[in-house]
């Protein structure tokens, strides 16, 4: 019987980066959703709600019958200021997992290694959870990448991007909660291949793949899917 490995992500940007990482790690994983959300005409904020209320429950029922053999979930913590944040996001997902029979352990000190929850019934596969950026603090995938740049050149580029953003004044229309997206997009716009994706940038060494945070993330992915 072939394994069916599923990684549930919130949206398009997370998907692209994870896809690249999965290829690099040689894990045979399908990332859901397969269809870009832009075709679905759903608002940005719907990503986690769709995951929480439809995609994840569906995945959990399939996991309990081994129609899926390995499952992991990646969501952004977002901001406590906006009513979300690491603790709340974790609670949203773990409440659902508990309803489906998963054992939710207390937050450990080793929390930034990600979590893998076992089921009360032996035989039903575990579920992995990683809340971006580092499974411990508020923020999003972009923060994980921006805080782990590969070399001083990239750092200088980022400083230039920050200066430019600060000088936008009235031209700036994006919210504070999206600042990290703006910073990362700008940084990627100025690479050797302008507009390169986060995933391709990862391959090209824009980020420090040996950093503690990125290593923790890749180790967690491998633990769930192998």
């Amino acid at each position, binding site marked *: 019987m072939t394994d069916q490995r599923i990684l549930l992500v919130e949206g398009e940007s997370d998907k692209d980066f994870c896809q690249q990482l999965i290829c690099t790690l040689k894990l045979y994983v399908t990332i859901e959703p397969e269809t870009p959300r832009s075709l679905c005409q759903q608002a940005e904020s719907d990503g986690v709600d769709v995951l929480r209320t*439809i*995609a994840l429950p*569906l995945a959990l029922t399939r996991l309990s*019958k081994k129609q899926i053999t390995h499952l992991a979930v990646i969501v952004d913590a977002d901001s406590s200021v906006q009513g979300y944040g690491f603790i709340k996001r974790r609670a949203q997902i773990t409440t659902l997992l508990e309803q489906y029979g998963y054992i939710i352990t207390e937050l450990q000190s080793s929390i930034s290694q990600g979590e893998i929850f076992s089921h009360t*019934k032996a*035989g039903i596969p575990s579920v992995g959870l990683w809340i971006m950026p580092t499974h411990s603090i508020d923020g999003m995938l972009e923060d994980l990448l921006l805080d782990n740049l590969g070399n001083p050149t990239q750092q200088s580029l980022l400083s230039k991007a920050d200066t430019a953003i600060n000088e936008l004044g009235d031209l700036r229309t994006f919210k504070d909660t999206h600042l990290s997206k703006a910073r990362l997009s700008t940084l990627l716009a100025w690479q050797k291949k302008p507009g390169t994706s986060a995933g391709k940038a990862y391959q090209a060494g824009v980020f420090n793949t040996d950093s503690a945070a990125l290593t923790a993330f890749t180790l967690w992915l491998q633990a769930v899917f192998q």
Partner: protein
Amino acid sequence: MLDSLHIKNFRCFEDLTIPSLGRVNLIVGKNSVGKTTLLEAIDILGNDAVISNIRKITQQRSLEKIEELFNSKTQSSIYIGNLDHTTGIEISLTNGDISVRSIEGKIEKPTTDHSKSNKAIALKINTLQELFDLFDSEPRERLNSSSIYSSFSSTKLESEEFIHSLYGFLSTDDEFNDTGLHHLILEWLRIINNKINHLYFLKKEKNIIAMIKIDGINDAIPLQSMGEGIKRLLQMLLRGFESGMFSGEYGGFWLIDEFENGLHYSIQEEVWEKLFKLAKELDIQVFATTHSEDTVKAFCKVSLADDEVDGKLISLGRSAAIADNGKILADVYDEKTLAWIVQSGMEVR
């Protein structure tokens, strides 16, 4: 129509519950998870002579002993019916005695006539063969008194002789033109080729052959020449019509095994649309199985678009919990999930 399904102790089903059913139900799942067996269970429930259906199933599956119909030898009866046990049948085997009991229920049109309820037939039978011999020699009593009827469109293609006799049986008169059934057939066949304008049967030597006429071509051509898919579609439609024509007070069941056989993905949505429409017109309940992701996606789209007919996607699978011993479970996916399946492209077959 059945609002729910409970199958207990029948073949691979230890105790299967499906809490809600629609008018059109599509069942997905891996091989050997019981998709065809589920159809067989409904076929037994929905037929006027339970025994003849049991015979058909035992022959098709090469079973020898009646015990093989039972999931567990420790349990004495099989139950097939709805969840609250108001409509169903019970097959029991105790010390070589087999009894079949029907529970007539209150679906759709309740009847105040209680004289036929809980009718039981008890017999002393040791082998399946004795059972069948007995029923062949005496007039068969109908357990459900024409309350439900089911037709089965199996994975195998029927012969053209059979299709011809089924067609003849269903036609309201001997003419091949202008019957409701004939129009319906052409409507369906045109899904595959929209220039088909006539279907008839020809006797050639000792065989009966289905012939079709196409716009712009004088000579009729054998239906066979257009491939197996179109024959399959015709067969499926005739079975649907059959269940509608003979269904009684409690409706009819149209059972379709491996819906996708012979059908290209590009026509599946249209076939589903016509099927949904026919099910409503004939007041029948459809149970179909599939292995095809295209079929699932097409079904979801049509079901979501149709406000009048309720479609349900049901996934069968074996529990991964060690303590459940591979017990088969069913999940019914709601509309929001169907919409997600269509949008996200997630595989659910």
